[in-house]
């Protein structure tokens, strides 16, 4: 390394722009911070030697320099910004409405949005935020952040540690705030110092040269906040692993008990009761609004009991359950037990529990029952024998019936709209007959059936939809966000201000610098020169 020795005696590392000790511009390096073209010195990193500005030979140098450029960093941020915006033009795949014509993205986007939708889908924008290139973009921002911060933090830290109160006059004259007073009495100088102290500046002195400084710690704000961001990015990576994050969904019907998925059969939940409440339309306060928008939900909740399996894990044996907690789960009031959290996510109203059919003769105007049977929809049998010798066989069962391009199928596995294809075997050796029955549907396959099946009765109940969640990454996100915010506040709500006083013959030179809020710095100076003959600093900033 070619160290640079300044006339003040300080030895600076290669690439230094302003001597770390006295601030004198190092002649051959002025182009680095653009000082050769301007009157004022670029004080961003106090003219310290940054790796990215010093070396550019090896491939490592080149990569380092690429990522440590703020220009590159801003470009990455802008690209992420644009990409994020594009992802909101059409809904992401997970937001395709449940009642869409088709939830298959290959069909949905074209069907709904035409050619643009199709392009959107084919470019993969329907899953934009988990696409490899979006994640890459975020990762690049992360890398850029780390390298950028290291490139500046280390030299800036050293430069601020090595700075001396005595500054070179060239350095002072080329500060944005500067004044020179020819005659200053000694007690005016003392007044300046006491004024600075009153404003809580720290005073450093060297042979009558004074540097007053405050808020240096705010210079570390950006680096602190970048650390917070990195923690958040790492947490997001961790979240993609199954050890740290569990996401399951369970439907429990009223009165039922079921194993909680994702707990390895360790926990069971019972839905004792599901409650749905709506706002009273006679409530004076909300009357007008309810008239306009219709019924508004007030609350839905599951009264749940959680059990733990305590018995030996014997295949086929009934689980031995021990009740561990009983609580009400509502939106905004999840239930926590062990490492799991249960969230009230949704519900299904009027899910069918059982249906009773009766058999009658097709031609009978009174539809008098020849016999009837009840199907438990969670556990339908293959065949029902009626008292009068008839047999009804379930040939097809569609729990959630719909017609899809002319083909019958079940939309889900839940009995929300049950429909059956029955085969009715009359006693004796009459031919069996096929018929189709469901809510509001009763179709006779051949049109020549002698017997007909009709719905006599049914019972419905609520099914409660709960999310099961384990998320060990949350603390990381919380810590990351907290550090980020502290860093931002540290950098934004405080400023690093320095004022230099440089005795010259009878008089004094005064220069000042801050990283932001020049208005505040000027007010400080106005305050400390009050009642002295020292001139107010000139603002030498060139407005472009």
């Amino acid at each position, binding site marked *: 390394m070619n160290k640079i020795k300044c006339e003040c005696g300080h030895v600076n590392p290669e690439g230094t722009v302003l001597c770390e000790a006295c601030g004198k511009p190092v002649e051959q390096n002025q182009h680095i911070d653009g000082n050769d073209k301007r009157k004022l010195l670029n004080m*961003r990193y106090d003219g310290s030697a940054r790796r990215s500005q010093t070396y550019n030979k090896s491939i490592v140098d080149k990569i380092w320099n690429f990522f440590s450029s*703020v220009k590159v*960093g*801003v470009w990455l*941020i*802008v690209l*992420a*910004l644009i990409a*994020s*915006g594009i*992802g*909101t*033009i059409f*809904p*992401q795949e*997970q*937001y395709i409405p449940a*009642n*869409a014509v088709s939830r298959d993205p290959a069909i949905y986007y074209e069907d*709904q*949005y035409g050619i*643009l*939708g199709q392009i959107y889908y084919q470019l993969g924008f329907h899953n934009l935020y988990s696409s490899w290139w979006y994640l890459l973009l975020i990762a690049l921002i992360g890398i850029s952040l780390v390298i950028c911060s290291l490139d500046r933090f280390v030299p800036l830290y050293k430069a601020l540690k090595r700075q001396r109160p005595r500054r070179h006059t060239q350095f002072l004259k080329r500060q944005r705030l500067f004044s020179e007073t020819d005659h200053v009495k000694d007690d005016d100088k003392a007044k300046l110092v006491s004024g600075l102290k009153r404003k809580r500046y720290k005073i450093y002195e060297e042979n009558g040269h004074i540097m007053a400084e405050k808020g240096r710690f705010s210079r570390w704000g950006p680096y602190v906040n970048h650390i917070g961001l990195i923690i958040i990015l790492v947490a997001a990576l961790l979240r993609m692993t199954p050890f740290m994050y569990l996401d399951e969904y369970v439907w429990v019907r009223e009165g039922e008990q079921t194993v909680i998925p994702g707990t390895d059969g360790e926990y069971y939940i019972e839905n004792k009761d599901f409650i749905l409440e709506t*706002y009273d339309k006679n*409530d*004076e*306060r*909300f009357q007008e*609004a*309810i008239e*306009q928008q219709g019924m*508004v*939900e*007030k*609350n*839905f909740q599951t009264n749940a009991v959680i059990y733990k399996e305590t018995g030996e894990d014997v295949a086929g044996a009934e689980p031995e359950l021990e009740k561990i907690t009983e609580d009400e789960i509502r*939106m*905004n009031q*999840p239930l926590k037990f062990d490492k799991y*959290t249960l*969230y009230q*996510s949704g519900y299904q109203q009027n899910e069918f529990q059982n249906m009773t059919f009766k058999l009658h003769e097709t031609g009978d105007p009174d539809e008098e029952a020849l016999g009837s049977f009840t199907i438990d929809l969670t556990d339908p049998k293959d065949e029902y024998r009626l008292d009068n010798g008839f047999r009804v066989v379930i040939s097809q069962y569609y729990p959630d019936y719909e017609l899809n391009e002319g083909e019958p199928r079940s939309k889900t596995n839940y009995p929300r709209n049950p429909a059956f294809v029955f085969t009715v075997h009359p006693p004796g050796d009459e031919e069996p007959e096929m018929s189709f029955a469901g809510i509001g549907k009763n179709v006779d396959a051949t049109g020549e059936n002698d017997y007909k099946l009709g719905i006599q009765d049914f019972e419905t109940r609520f099914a409660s939809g709960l*999310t099961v969640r384990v998320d060990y990454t*949350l603390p990381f*996100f919380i810590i990351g*966000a907290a550090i*980020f*915010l502290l860093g*931002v*506040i540290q950098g*934004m*709500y405080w400023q690093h201000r320095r004022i230099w006083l440089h005795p010259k013959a009878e008089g004094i030179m005064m220069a000042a610098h801050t990283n*932001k*809020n*020049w*208005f505040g710095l000027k007010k400080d100076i106005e305050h400390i020169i009050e009642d002295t003959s020292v001139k107010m600093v000139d*603002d030498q*900033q060139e*407005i*472009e």
Partner: protein
Amino acid sequence: MGSLIEISSTMLYTAFVIYLIATFFFGATIRQKNKPARKGISGKIGITLTIVGFLAQIVYFITRWIASGHAPVSNMFEFVTFFGMCLVFAFIIMYFIYRINILGLFALPIAMILIAYASMFPTEIAPLVPSLQSHWLYIHVTTVALGQAILAVSFVAALIYLIRQIDQTVRSKRTTWLELIIFGLFVFIGFSVISTAFNLSGYSAEFEYSFEGQTVTTDYHLPPIAGPNEGELLTGGRMEPLFDAPGWMQGVDAARKFNTLIWSVLTGLVIYGLTRLILRKRIGAAIQPFLKKAKPDLLDEISYRAVAIGFPIFTLGGLVFAAIWAQIAWDRFWGWDPKEVWALVTWFFYAAFLHLRLSRGWHGEKSAWLAAGGFAIILFNLIAVNLILAGLHSYA
């Protein structure tokens, strides 16, 4: 109960009128021939009135809270009104840091435009659906609004800077962009004017159309230039829509809101056109001479400082509190809902702004344009995301 709501609306109206009067006093501070002493007085009266107006608006807020039983930030009317109030608050803070009267002359009218805009939405008190029944509703919403309001002050200072600094002797790209920003403000005024006009006349036309597989109806209060996609007019004696709103507009009642937007732009154009006719020059050029005494470097500083103060608050409210609430209510702290994404876009944008300013020396005019861009994104998130994009934040 009823009387409390009446007090509440009266106080909002009072606040609006007081802001208007305060604006005139701030206006008086720029008249060149005034003596400095007189100027000081009108500035003082201006800020005092602003504070009185702000207090009146606080009374509005509290009484409405008591009447409804929840913080009045749960629908479009309440939120935008609150945003306007925060803008006044942010202005008051900035005023006491920098003692600059001219800021009030621009900040108060913008706050008034927002309040007038808000009042065109349904103002009745609506009950809260389960997901909104959380303290995080107002913790989140109030911090977001405050953060955005401080960022809006950055825009106000930037706007003054641009009007003051841009060369108006010849027409250029910059003068055109500046006029566009000013025109944007006229669109808001247009919205309020046209909505009021048709509200007074009691216009209404009902349509039936299909939305997410269901047949729904919507009630137009402005004549339908754009009707619902493949909708059918139910009310007799009303004009048929000139065309249908495009099918990709997804929000609730998207077509009706789109129609309102068209009306607002048209009305805005008319008012803008008339103003230009009267002034016989660009609006920027007409205002410029009054700003001669404003110090550009101070305006630049205020604009930046507002971002420096507003950015952490916005991050806290718009991202951190939002995430905490989403975690409690919807079991995930981040869901790529359009409104969330646009909060992220806003955040990215201001991060870019800060980096450009700090490390690439984007001061003065460049920085001012960026501040205007940031405000545009905030408004986009407030208005357009509800208009064309579907999502969880189904305000209005």
